[in-house]
């Protein structure tokens, strides 16, 4: 591997274009025919089922529990209670929430409605589990609950989650998880330079994780060996095998990054001795079935890991019978996108230049709410004041999900444009930059580090405006009434694209009989990064797409790392390893093609042993590999199949390639080392609405999504992230909201009927446009495209409604009642 490792400077092989690439997915037939087996579908001989009690209260302690009737029920095999010696040790080691606190595996006190807690029943069927759970008599002590975070921040608020271990040094009793202020530049100076200071408040209600397959996992012990069929992306081996883990955070482990972030300064209380490992790392095997969607609100990671730990304990007690731990549909409402209140103050000049922005946020902390504004603008002065306290609504926490950044970011541009009568797309361009630097500065950085000199935002805005006919349709707020009586509005949002390369994972390619297997474990929930992986390896190694598959690998500890799931990061994080591996494989194939074959046949049927080269007299640089054939460049008729060549050396030197990639290196500025990376790719989305001023209904009539993916690997996969993300984002923006009873703290709409998920008839066809600027840091300049569309569109409705009506509705979701209220109709 070269010392100067810059994957964005790599050039794709000739003929590599995903623009018209329509190769079918390897999972297509399984999924369409209903034969794909998801974790929830698994059914093994002798399997037992396990279900956990869910709390009927927002906050209540179990005073006593009588399980005698349940124990007597035929088919009940085990009952594990919150105070059982096998589980009490696990409290405070359940799951991990955004580096700030741990959730509990099986607590005796519920912290929110439908929290899995108290007791778990193991039985011959799910049905018997349900029946047994209902036969358990519990004496509860209801405790005070708080649904409003501002109330929870008060010093005299009741302590509502006494057992939660909060890790941040700024955590305070009774309920504060974190408070801090981060300032970049000089916020007061920025406001002093402004022609106008604009202030407004945004509120966002909590919404759910976009999931379809509720948590499930199957665990079986084989003596000391542990087999796991998990749900989703939990990286389970370290959780179960690392004795020091209870005293450290898990953070990215669950995402599959393979790292463990230590927080040894804040060990869990009530534990003096380290937790013994549940299983030694090299005795754990993991098989990943298909996974139903589970997007947004990353707190599910905590539950997915907690569930596996619980299942392992139950399976141990089940004495080698497999145990399937399942959770019902209320699982979707445990986690989700965070609610928040943003008190915003923006300073701007008349030409749209923003001089300062200041967010005071009351809500869960995933990342700094100004992070993406900082990453994607030249605004020099930014401040984020964060206040986060526990509330009895579950753990609505996500980090790097993005809605919490995208919503205030785009509302700011809408407000500045409205204040000075400007076009919001012009305001966006006026402030485009990276981490306080303007685009002239970024252009110098691009030149010095091998990037093309392009301004992504200008390109995506141009494409989007043309597609939606923005210049023809844009109008002053409330100025266009349609013949049908509705008001016409346009909405626009923009922000940087997501993740760039981080490395760490590695690829394993095995070539045998001319067929190549990419080995890696990942919990795919539909993003189809597999097709991109196959396509990139095929073109780089010179093989046929059809001859390549991706296989999940039963994992022994960390032999084959989990890959990141896909979407926002899968392609950017995994392709550098795959491209490196494919190039190494191609070199190996050519090397053996010109090398005299071994004189001793290693295995019957192999073609080794001739003692002669397959291309006598030829040197490696005279050969190439394409479409499964090694051939002489000057005389392509002289060719041998890759199968022939690779089979000839398999016995001596099997074609198994698994390179790692180094950290990025070689970035400079003004000739000096400069390690900073800047996110230079942008996305822009454009929406057309009609607002019925009599009903408050907001009808989306046109939506254009433009994403600069840097380099496109898989058109269908990228577009799916666009239209799929758009529908998720519109749900968060206009319809989806978890509603709690203020008197009881109970969820009122926690099901698919009461919770408003859009249907096929609720959205127009979404026009998806891909831009390739090659400004990402991954292979060929690729970057992420996944969840960012959903995150950025989470705030688009307010701007469109303002353009239609001249009224701000900054209370998400923007539902008809709120529109009518803004219009003074109710």
């Amino acid at each position: 591997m070269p010392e100067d490792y810059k994957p964005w400077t790599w050039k794709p092989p000739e003929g590599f274009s995903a623009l018209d690439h329509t190769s079918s997915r390897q999972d297509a037939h399984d999924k369409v025919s209903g034969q794909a087996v998801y974790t929830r579908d698994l059914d093994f001989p002798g399997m037992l089922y396990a279900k956990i009690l869910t709390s009927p209260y927002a906050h209540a302690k179990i005073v006593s529990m009588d399980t005698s009737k349940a124990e007597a029920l035929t088919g009940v095999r085990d009952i594990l209670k919150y105070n059982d010696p096998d589980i009490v040790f696990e409290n405070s080691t359940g799951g991990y929430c955004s580096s700030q606190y741990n959730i509990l595996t099986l607590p005796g006190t519920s912290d929110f409605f439908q929290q899995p807690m108290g007791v778990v029943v193991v039985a011959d069927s799910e049905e018997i589990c349900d029946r047994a759970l209902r036969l358990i008599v519990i004496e509860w002590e209801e405790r005070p609950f708080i649904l409003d975070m501002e109330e929870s921040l008060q010093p005299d608020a009741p302590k509502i989650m006494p057992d939660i271990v909060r890790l941040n040094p700024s955590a305070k009793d009774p309920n504060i998880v974190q408070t801090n202020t981060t300032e970049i530049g000089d916020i007061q100076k920025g406001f002093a330079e402004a022609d106008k200071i604009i202030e407004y408040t945004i509120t966002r209600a909590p919404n759910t994780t976009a999931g379809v397959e509720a948590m499930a996992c199957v665990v079986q012990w084989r003596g000391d060996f542990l087999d796991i069929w998990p749900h989703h992306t939990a990286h389970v081996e370290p959780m179960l095998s690392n004795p020091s883990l209870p005293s450290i955070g898990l953070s990215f482990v669950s995402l599959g990054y393979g790292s463990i972030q230590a927080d040894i300064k804040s060990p869990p209380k009530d534990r003096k001795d380290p937790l013994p490992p549940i299983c030694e790392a090299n005795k754990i095997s993991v098989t990943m079935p298909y996974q139903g969607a589970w997007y947004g609100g990353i707190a599910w990671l905590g539950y997915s890991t907690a569930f596996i730990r619980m299942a392992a304990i139950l399976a141990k007690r089940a004495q080698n019978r497999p145990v399937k731990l399942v959770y019902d549909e209320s699982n979707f409402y445990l986690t989700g996108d965070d609610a928040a209140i943003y008190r915003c103050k923006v300073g701007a000049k008349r030409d749209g230049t923003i001089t300062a922005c200041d967010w005071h946020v009351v809500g869960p902390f995933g990342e700094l709410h100004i992070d993406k504004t900082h990453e994607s603008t030249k605004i020099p002065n930014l401040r984020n004041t964060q206040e986060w306290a526990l509330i009895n609504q579950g753990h609505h926490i996500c980090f790097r999900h993005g809605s919490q950044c995208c919503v205030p970011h785009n509302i700011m541009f809408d407000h500045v444009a409205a204040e000075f009568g400007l076009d919001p797309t012009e305001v966006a361009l006026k402030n485009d930059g990276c981490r306080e630097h303007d685009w002239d500065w970024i252009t110098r950085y691009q030149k010095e580090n091998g990037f093309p000199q392009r301004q992504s935002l200008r390109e995506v805005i141009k494409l989007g405006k043309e597609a939606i006919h923005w210049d023809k349709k844009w109008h002053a707020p409330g100025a266009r009434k349609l013949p049908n009586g509705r008001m016409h509005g346009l909405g626009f949002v923009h922000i940087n694209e997501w993740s760039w390369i981080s490395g760490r994972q590695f690829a394993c390619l095995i070539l045998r009989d001319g067929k190549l297997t990419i080995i890696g474990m990942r919990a795919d929930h539909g993003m189809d990064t597999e097709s991109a992986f196959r396509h990139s390896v095929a073109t780089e190694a010179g093989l046929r797409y059809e001859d390549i598959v991706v296989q999940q690998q039963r994992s022994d500890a960390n032999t084959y790392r989990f890959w990141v799931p896909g979407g926002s990061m899968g392609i950017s994080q995994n392709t550098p390893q795959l491209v490196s591996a494919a190039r190494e494989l191609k070199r190996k194939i050519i090397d053996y093609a010109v090398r005299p074959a071994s004189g001793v046949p290693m295995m019957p049927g192999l073609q080794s042993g001739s003692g002669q080269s397959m291309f006598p007299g030829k040197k490696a640089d005279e050969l190439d590999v394409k479409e499964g054939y090694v051939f002489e460049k000057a005389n392509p008729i002289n060719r041998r199949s890759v199968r022939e060549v690779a089979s000839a050396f398999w016995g001596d030197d099997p074609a198994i390639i698994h390179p790692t990639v180094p950290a990025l290196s070689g970035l400079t500025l003004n000739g000096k080392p400069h390690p900073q990376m800047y996110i230079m790719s942008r996305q822009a989305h454009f929406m057309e609405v009609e607002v019925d001023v009599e009903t408050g209904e907001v009808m989306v009539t046109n939506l254009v999504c433009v994403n600069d993916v840097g380099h496109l690997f898989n058109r269908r996969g990228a577009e799916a992230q666009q239209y799929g993300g758009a529908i998720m984002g519109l749900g968060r923006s206009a319809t989806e909201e978890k509603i709690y009873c203020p008197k009881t703290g109970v969820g009122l709409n926690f099901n698919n009927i009461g919770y408003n998920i859009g249907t096929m008839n609720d959205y127009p066809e979404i026009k998806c446009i891909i831009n390739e600027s090659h400004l990402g840091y991954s292979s060929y300049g690729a970057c992420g495209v996944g969840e960012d569309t959903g995150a950025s569109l989470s705030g688009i409705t307010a701007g469109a409604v303002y353009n239609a009506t001249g009224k701000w509705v900054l209370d998400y979701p923007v539902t008809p009642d709120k529109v009518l209220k803004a219009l003074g109709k109710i």
Partner: protein
Amino acid sequence: MSEKEKKTNEGERKEGFGHISRREFLRDAGLVIGGSTMGSIAFASETEAQQQVKESDVAKDPCSEESADITTIELTVNGGKYGFRVEPHWSLRQLLRDEIGLTSPKDWCGGHGACGSCTVIMNGRPVLSCLTLACECDGAIIETAEGIAKAKHPIIQSYIKWNAFQCGYCTPGFVTTAKALLDRNPDPTEADVRDALAGNLCRCGTYQQHPPAVLEAAEALKRK
């Protein structure tokens, strides 16, 4: 809420639950065979429905002798003949998954008939197998996504071609609903397709891929 209050869940059960069985409720609500009606279930009745379903489970212990009201049924599933002795509370989905071993009727919404993921074709109509009682399927002809694929119906290839899925969990429900539409309307418009599939939810947001896939399958059927 500062006052500490002690309750038992046993006590709450007595206060809160009614006495309508799941089976009676389903019959009364007219939802026993209701694939196309799922989108019209009123929100107001849903909470009540949930409570009543839960109560029926409490009232009738599936493992107790009182529940031994076994029904013998015969039905055809994907062309194969089957005979079962079914418990009165078993759903068709339960039968297809647990007894026959099919995986395509999925559970997303928890048996509320609110997502369409468990849709199968019963006697030519799309039905929600989670809300269809197995004991009422005597003599029924059932088609699932597995059977549609086995019969090489063009809807399978057109769904693959149009990438009308992502995670794939809800996809079999779309496939069965779409196939039922094509069975009764071989020449649908895009609006027909959208209306037919509006009761199927997809969290990956693949909605716009389905109409062209279904329309292309319709064209393929005409060419046959």
